[in-house]
Every structure is written in C-alpha cells, then in structure tokens.
C-alpha cells in the first residue's frame, strides 16, 4: 500500500493493492477462509464506492483498517447470534504462565527479516488460539503495527484497556511460541 493514489480504479489494481491485505486481516480475525472472503468482498466494494473521496494512499490505509475491522466484527456478531455462544468476562479468560516457569533463551537472529514457512505456520496457529478480544488487539498492534490509540478507536476501548489486553495477549503468544523455538534450537 505504498503505491501512489491511482487515477482510475481498475479491478487489477484493486486486487494487487487492497484485496490481499484486507483478506489477511479478515482471515486472521475470523479464523476461517469463507468468512474472510465475505468480508473482503464487502470491504472491496466499499473501497470502490468511496475511492474519489480519498486524498492519499495513507488515508486509504487508515480507512481500510477501520472498515475491515468493522466488517469483521459485524460478521463475527452475526455468526455468534447464529450459534448463540456463551461469552464470559473477557478480562478473566486468558491464563498465562508467570516468569517463574522454565524458559530458555531462544536463539533466533533478532534481524531475521523473513520467516521460514514452518515458523510462519506456528505463529498463525498461535494467533488463532487467542480468544477473540485478545486476538483482535494482538493482530492490530503486533502484526499490523497500528498505534494503541487507533486500535482503541476501532474496537471501542480505552488506550489503557488496549495496553492491558495486548500485554496479556503477548504473554500468551510467548507461552505458545517459546517451546517451538526451543525445539528449533535443539535441531
């Protein structure tokens, strides 16, 4: 999404610039391909309708995140209504290991820019295992790299709540990932 703002929108351009990013956020939030496809189509059509109102690419990027998150949340709500799932108090759900538990230092190059396919799959699986309220914050902060204030706006949370959920999500992700990296070191 670093390309200059297109003068005319062609399906080709939309596919290259926006669809894969929208799809990835939706797939990670919703955890399945079919729902992600529905959301991607919904958001893409909104992009097409609104394109002449944008002044620059960064503006589209911000807007796209917001619209994609909204669409994914709405989709999830519809799905929850269909399934009538029970929901607990989200702030009490996430169990994480305390620092007292055995952890070993994990020797992967800090500058490693590209993930191995195997590593990639392990991280995606761990994200999928996070309860939704934590997954959303983790995705937007640590995968998409959005500021906490923006995430708070998108999810209707205070910055303090975003930070608290993010910290717990990171602790859980660490718990889930650390054993895999130890195995990697051993091999």
């Amino acid at each position: 999404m670093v390309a200059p703002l297109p003068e005319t929108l062609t399906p080709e351009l939309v596919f290259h610039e926006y669809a894969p990013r929208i799809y990835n956020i939706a797939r990670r939030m919703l955890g399945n391909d079919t729902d992600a496809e529905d959301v991607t189509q919904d958001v893409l059509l909104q992009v097409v309708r609104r394109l002449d109102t944008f002044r620059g690419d960064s503006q589209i990027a911000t807007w796209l995140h917001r619209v994609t998150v909204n669409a994914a949340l709405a989709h999830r709500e519809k799905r929850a209504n269909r399934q009538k799932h029970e929901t607990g108090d989200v702030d009490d759900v996430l169990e994480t290991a305390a620092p007292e538990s055995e952890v070993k230092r994990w020797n992967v190059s800090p500058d490693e820019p590209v993930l191995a396919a195997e590593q990639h799959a392990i991280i995606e699986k761990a994200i999928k295992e996070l309860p939704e309220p934590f997954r959303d914050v983790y995705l937007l902060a640590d995968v998409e790299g959005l500021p906490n204030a923006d995430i708070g706006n998108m999810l209707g949370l205070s910055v303090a709540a975003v930070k608290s959920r993010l910290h717990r999500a990171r602790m859980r992700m660490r718990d889930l990932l650390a054993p895999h990296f130890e195995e990697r070191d051993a091999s």
Partner: protein
Amino acid sequence: MTCEELMAVLADYVGGELVVEHHATVKIHIDGCAKCGSYVATYTHTIRISRALPKCGQLSAAFEAKLRAALAEHLGEATS
C-alpha cells in the same frame, strides 16, 4: 524491583514508554535475574516475529474469480 513489579511494567518497558530512571531500574533487574532476562527476551522476540508476518494473503483462484465478477458488475453499474 521484584519480578512481579517487572511484569507489571513490561509492556511499557518494551514500548519505550518508561521514564529514563524507571527504564534503568528495569534494565538492572533484567541483567541480574536470569528468569526475567529469559522471559523478556522471548517476549520481545515474539513481538518481533509477529511483525515479520506477511501482510498480504493469497486469494484462492475461485475466490479471485468471484471477486473480479462482483467488482466488474459493480463498476459496470457505477459507470452506466
């Protein structure tokens, strides 16, 4: 600083949001406590590799075709 106190400020520490003196206190604890040193290293590494995940997903051929059709239809309506 205790291990519990470190955990309470860890997010602010890795986010660079602590004032200098407080940051230094955390650093001293990490350097002197193997458990917290390991924990902070794996915590920050978890964040780093998450940032390295690809931002773009691969659309299936079937979905791409469906999407192209929906988009073409929409564009056709908009210009006609």
